[in-house]
């Protein structure tokens, strides 16, 4: 039985809408004096972070605690991993301690899949970002933010994002956020356009369910949301563009470009933002930028995912996914 959330592509439209609807109710818990639900009492969740992260780790931890789960935090720095322990041994150590779910962030694409399908552990595996592969909860919280802003909080219940035009701009090559968003937004019926310099688009992009453009200015007037991606310098080992100033001039979002967007369109950023590079301070601080809202929505989405995967005797989402090859 699948109890994992590895990729946004594993979710059907109904799964995704159920997660968004559940998150809408979870969001209301944040307005209460006691921000806690007893739902995951007695379940142990490990946050296994092999890569640096602030917002995702804190967001998962907040979501787990609001659902009353017992939380164990693990970061590679200062653990046995820095002494040379393998993923397998780390996983089996956790299994021996009896954890119910593992939230994993790893620099290697496919590490969560390996953990889920290797037979090393019985726990549910939730991907919190792996290499340049997937970051499904980010895509879900982005879709949640779009549905709230473009369709409406109550009007959006039960609805997908059919016909919404979403533009994703920047370092698509290194971005798991872009990959997850393309998969999920396509499932939800939105039309996605990727905009980037040719060097920052991956090989095989023509098979993705989206449009590709090299020109930001011509795309902006006809989109409902524009998502700016950070240029991931830590993953770059070659020169992908001549200078930062040139990149910023052609693919950065400043006040003048924002003025070309339709009145209702929103500006999104998964964070961390590099002000002056892909987004100017003027845009980042404007009311149309949803970066802070996305962080708040992240907690609600992660509560929804944890509840739907772990709240019952079997998961309410992703169980239709065909099982991958079992390796020992």
């Amino acid at each position: 039985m699948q109890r994992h959330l590895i990729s946004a592509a594993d979710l059907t439209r109904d799964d995704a809408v159920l997660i968004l609807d559940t998150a809408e109710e979870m969001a209301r818990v944040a307005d209460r004096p006691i921000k806690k639900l007893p739902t995951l009492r007695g379940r142990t969740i490990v946050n296994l972070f092999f890569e640096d992260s602030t917002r995702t780790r804190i967001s998962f931890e907040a979501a787990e605690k609001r659902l009353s789960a017992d939380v164990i935090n693990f970061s590679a720095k200062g653990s046995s991993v820095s002494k040379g322990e393998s993923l397998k041994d780390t996983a089996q150590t956790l299994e021996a301690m009896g954890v119910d779910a593992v939230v994993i962030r790893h620099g290697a694409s496919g590490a969560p899949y390996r953990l889920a399908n290797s037979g090393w552990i019985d726990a549910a595996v939730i991907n919190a970002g792996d290499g340049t592969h997937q970051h499904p909860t980010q895509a879900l919280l982005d879709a949640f933010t779009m549905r709230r802003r473009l369709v409406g909080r109550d009007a959006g219940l039960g609805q997908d994002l059919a016909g919404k035009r979403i533009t994703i701009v920047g370092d698509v090559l290194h971005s798991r956020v872009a990959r997850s968003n393309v998969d999920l937004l396509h499932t939800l019926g939105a039309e996605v356009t990727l905009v980037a310099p040719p060097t920052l688009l991956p090989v095989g992009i023509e098979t993705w369910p989206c449009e590709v453009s090299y020109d930001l200015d011509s795309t902006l007037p006809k989109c409902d949301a524009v998502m700016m991606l950070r240029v991931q310098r830590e993953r770059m080992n070659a020169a992908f563009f001549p200078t930062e100033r040139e990149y910023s001039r052609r693919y950065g979002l400043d006040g003048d470009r924002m003025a070309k967007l339709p009145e209702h369109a929103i500006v999104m950023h998964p964070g961390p933002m590099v002000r002056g590079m892909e987004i100017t301070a003027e845009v980042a601080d404007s009311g149309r930028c949803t970066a802070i809202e996305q962080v708040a929505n992240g907690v609600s989405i992660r509560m929804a995912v944890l509840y739907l995967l772990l709240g019952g005797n079997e998961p309410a989402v992703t169980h239709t996914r065909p099982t991958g090859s079992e390796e020992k």
Partner: protein
Amino acid sequence: MDKQQQDAQASDARPVLEGPDIARVMTRIAHEIVERAKGADDVVLLGIPTRGVFLAQRLAVKLEQITERKVPCGSLDITMYRDDLRMHPPRALARTEIPGDGIDGKLVVLVDDVLFSGRTIRAALDALNDIGRPRAVQLAVLVDRGHRELPIRADYVGKNLPTSLRETVKVQLAEEDGRDTVLLGAKADQ
């Protein structure tokens, strides 16, 4: 249970309360609430989804007619507080809507369609605990069918309906099902 089975069961089921009966029962409960709460100034009605919410809204209208004051009315979803969460796949959540002034120091009247094992009400009391501290909590139900598994009782009962565990009680309301009725049927063979 699939749709066909459900329809077959509905045709066997015998109505024990019809639309006008339900309306009369709700009027009586509204009067009882006013009587016991000595005017119902601090009453907050909280319906338990799905059908309890509609009953609470109907009670709010009747209370307003009697007291000529608006009575706060909301909903309380108990899904996350259920004691059988781990026995089923996770259920979709319903809306919890607490009226603006909250429930602290108020007389909360929980409203549900059928009182059976009492477990739903236990979950509702737990949920209330996380939202505030009412002055008192009372319970209004349309049908009490008995077979309590917890020491819980209703303060206002529309109809006491002695049943066997082989029977099902199904409340249908116009807002959700298109008509008002309470059906008593035989449980489908398992």
